[in-house]
């Protein structure tokens, strides 16, 4: 009995142990996976907490920054203290200054365009050292809807003159791709006209810009443009102007002396090249303009049409290393009115002729700091009424032309040195070899990289 009892006990004990062991091992696996899960969760939460901590630190720094600025702002309402200026500085516009200087050497003493009425700035620049234009630009958002910009140029022309190159406001928040501008600004016609000369690829403007626009058309007025919601870049715009800047002049008898219209399309070819094509017009009515050092007077209408094109290719994909820029423009002008050459004593002669001009240029950046460029420009003076033969408008069967080669070195985005050679033949048998050394430096605000 006791043996049986002992056996049964042993049996039970074995069963119990086995049983409990199974239970225990099952519990053990559960526990491990639970533990793992908890560890996983903890890790996840730790990371989430870390993330939150990071956020808190970021916010803290931002708050500290705000706090640091706050005392200055509070003091700003108190009477003059040194901190007051710091407070108001926050809203100062971005300030940029462009310093430009040139050294010109010419082989001919005189340089006159044959067959064209030319304004003062269209003429050859002065020989020797010249400061050209020194520009000061102030620009800032005015509020959430408007932006303002003004550029004051100090120009060296018979002593130093102050010129208000641009002073305009433009809209920031018009919907549907509409944009409006008012004030004095470079009208959107052609390609080069919109840009300040310090952004140019050559030291001087091509011939058509010099004779037809006196380098650049900037007038007082308004301009509106609209970008279409298409994949192909399409922009249409128009402007109304006073009409007092060359080729305009005088007050005329109309409130609006000039208008412009332009259309542009553009896009990419693959990843590494882009193009733009434009068509624009500038029409000035009832203008009274004197040119050629006040020796030539014109009264009448001026209708001008411009085709512009530009193509940029970055061979390696990165335009910082290598870049090819090709650009060409064609201008055609019809002047209908009366010319009077005071110097030649022609008396008023009625004139209705077409004149045209074009240029093509290429600039190749072969190293992040070095570029080479070539440009050719030519003018077609059209025909001259016989009564104006022997005057400044007499082209003497010569088409003014100019060929240029340039090399420039760009240390950083803010400084550039340039050497340029021009072979310019503006009148018959008067080939002028010109060498120009130029520096262009910009201080302060970062300039835009236009297309």
């Amino acid at each position: 009995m006791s043996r049986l009892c002992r056996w049964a006990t042993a049996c039970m004990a074995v069963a119990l142990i086995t049983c409990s062991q199974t239970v225990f091992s099952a519990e053990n696996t559960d526990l491990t996976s639970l533990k793992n899960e908890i560890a996983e969760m903890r890790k996840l939460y730790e990371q989430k907490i870390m993330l939150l901590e990071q956020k808190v630190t970021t916010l803290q720094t931002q708050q500290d920054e705000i706090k640091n600025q706050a005392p200055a702002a509070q003091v700003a309402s108190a009477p003059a203290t040194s901190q007051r200026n710091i407070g108001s500085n926050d809203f100062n516009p971005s300030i940029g200054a462009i310093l430009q200087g040139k050294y010109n050497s010419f082989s001919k003493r005189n340089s006159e365009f044959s067959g064209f009425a030319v304004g003062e700035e269209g003429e050859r620049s002065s020989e020797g050292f010249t400061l050209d234009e020194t520009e000061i630009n102030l620009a800032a958002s005015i509020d959430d809807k408007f932006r303002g910009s003004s550029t004051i140029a100090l120009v060296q022309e018979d002593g130093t003159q102050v010129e208000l190159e641009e002073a305009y406001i433009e809209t920031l928040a018009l919907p549907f791709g509409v944009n409006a501008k008012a004030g004095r600004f470079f009208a959107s016609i052609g390609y080069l006209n919109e840009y300040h000369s310090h952004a140019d690829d050559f030291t001087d403007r091509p011939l058509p810009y010099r004779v037809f626009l006196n380098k650049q058309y900037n007038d007082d007025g308004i301009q509106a443009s609209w970008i279409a919601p298409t994949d192909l870049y399409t922009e249409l715009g128009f402007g109304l102007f006073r009409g007092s800047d060359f080729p305009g002049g005088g007050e005329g008898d109309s409130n609006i002396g000039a208008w412009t219209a332009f259309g542009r399309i553009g896009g990419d070819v693959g990843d590494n090249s882009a193009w733009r094509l434009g068509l624009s017009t500038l029409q000035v009515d009832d203008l009274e303009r004197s040119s050629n050092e006040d020796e030539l007077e014109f009264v009448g209408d001026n209708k001008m049409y411009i085709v512009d094109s530009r193509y940029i290719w970055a061979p390696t994909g990165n335009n910082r290393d290598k870049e090819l820029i090709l650009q060409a423009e064609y201008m055609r002008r019809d002047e209908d009115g009366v010319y009077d050459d005071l110097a030649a004593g022609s008396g008023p002669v009625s004139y209705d002729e077409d004149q045209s001009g074009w240029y093509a240029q290429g600039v190749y950046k072969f190293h992040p700091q070095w570029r080479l460029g070539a440009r050719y420009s030519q003018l077609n003076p059209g025909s001259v009424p016989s009564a104006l033969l022997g005057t400044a408008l007499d082209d003497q069967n010569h088409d003014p032309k100019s060929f240029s080669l340039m090399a420039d070195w760009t240390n950083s985005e803010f400084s550039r040195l340039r050497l340029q050679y021009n072979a310019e033949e503006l009148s018959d048998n008067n080939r002028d070899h010109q060498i120009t050394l130029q520096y262009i430096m910009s201080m302060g605000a970062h300039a835009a990289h236009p297309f």
Partner: protein
Amino acid sequence: MNIHKRFLLFLIKLLLLLVLLPSSAFAQLNIFACAPEWGALAKEIGGTQVSVYAASNAAQDIHHLRARPSFLAKMRKADLVFCTGASLESGWLPVLLQKAGDPKVQPGNVGHLMASDYVMRLEIPEAVDRSMGDVHSEGNPHIHLNPHNLILIADELSKRLAKLLPQQAKLFNKNFEDFHTHWLSNIDRWEQQTLSLNNKNVVVYHSNWIYLLEWLKLNRIATLEPVPGIPPRISHLETVLNSVQDLNIKGILLTPYQQNKAAAWLSKHSDIPVIELPYTVGGNEKAKDLESLFEETLRILLGTDA
């Protein structure tokens, strides 16, 4: 008056043109991303509800882009402008916004997201002067190579998308949560994998690696550019060569768009290998999205680990 009549006629023609052009309606949000990494992140969070345009690719130095006509066309249709900020795109983005941007993508509005506003920026200079080169007063803008930063940015992105397209808010939130969880486990794995890189020395071409170096605890011994944005010159390279001679340097880090002549010169004279990392999405064949960008970056860094 003649001029008025002519002008009126022109205006009428213009209006006709406007009316005749088809107005297109978009169900999706159009995202203008300045850089490939932001394009990739926008796709992760926006999913099928967004159409993403990346303005640059990995071969381009984003700071030096031009305001191309095609950018204007894309900006015109953008509901969200997703860029780096901290002045990295200051040469071309403001022009685009001003000329073609809708009111909702202008600075301060919901459609204007500058990633660097949402992370801790490093190298914020105490004072700036152009003689220091192309430094940014807001700090170093090349923020995307610390994967922790991407979570912070993705979080903000999902909120912006939800505001712009409220009917899809749940989806954007879910996409962010999924990205978050997945990314955290990635980070954990990457950090385990790269323990061997801690405290190793590197030379960089430009100061656009600092966030990666910080994350992996790598030391930057020298920069090939004398000051940011100025290409290396031989005199500066010689100084760099002297400074690295007695050190154990792991490699010279380059992006696909940086010219490697200077790096090759230094490598030749010092036997330090040049390591070209993808830098951003599309930087090499395998770096197809953000995850593979990091996988590739770490693979290359570890692979060259002696």
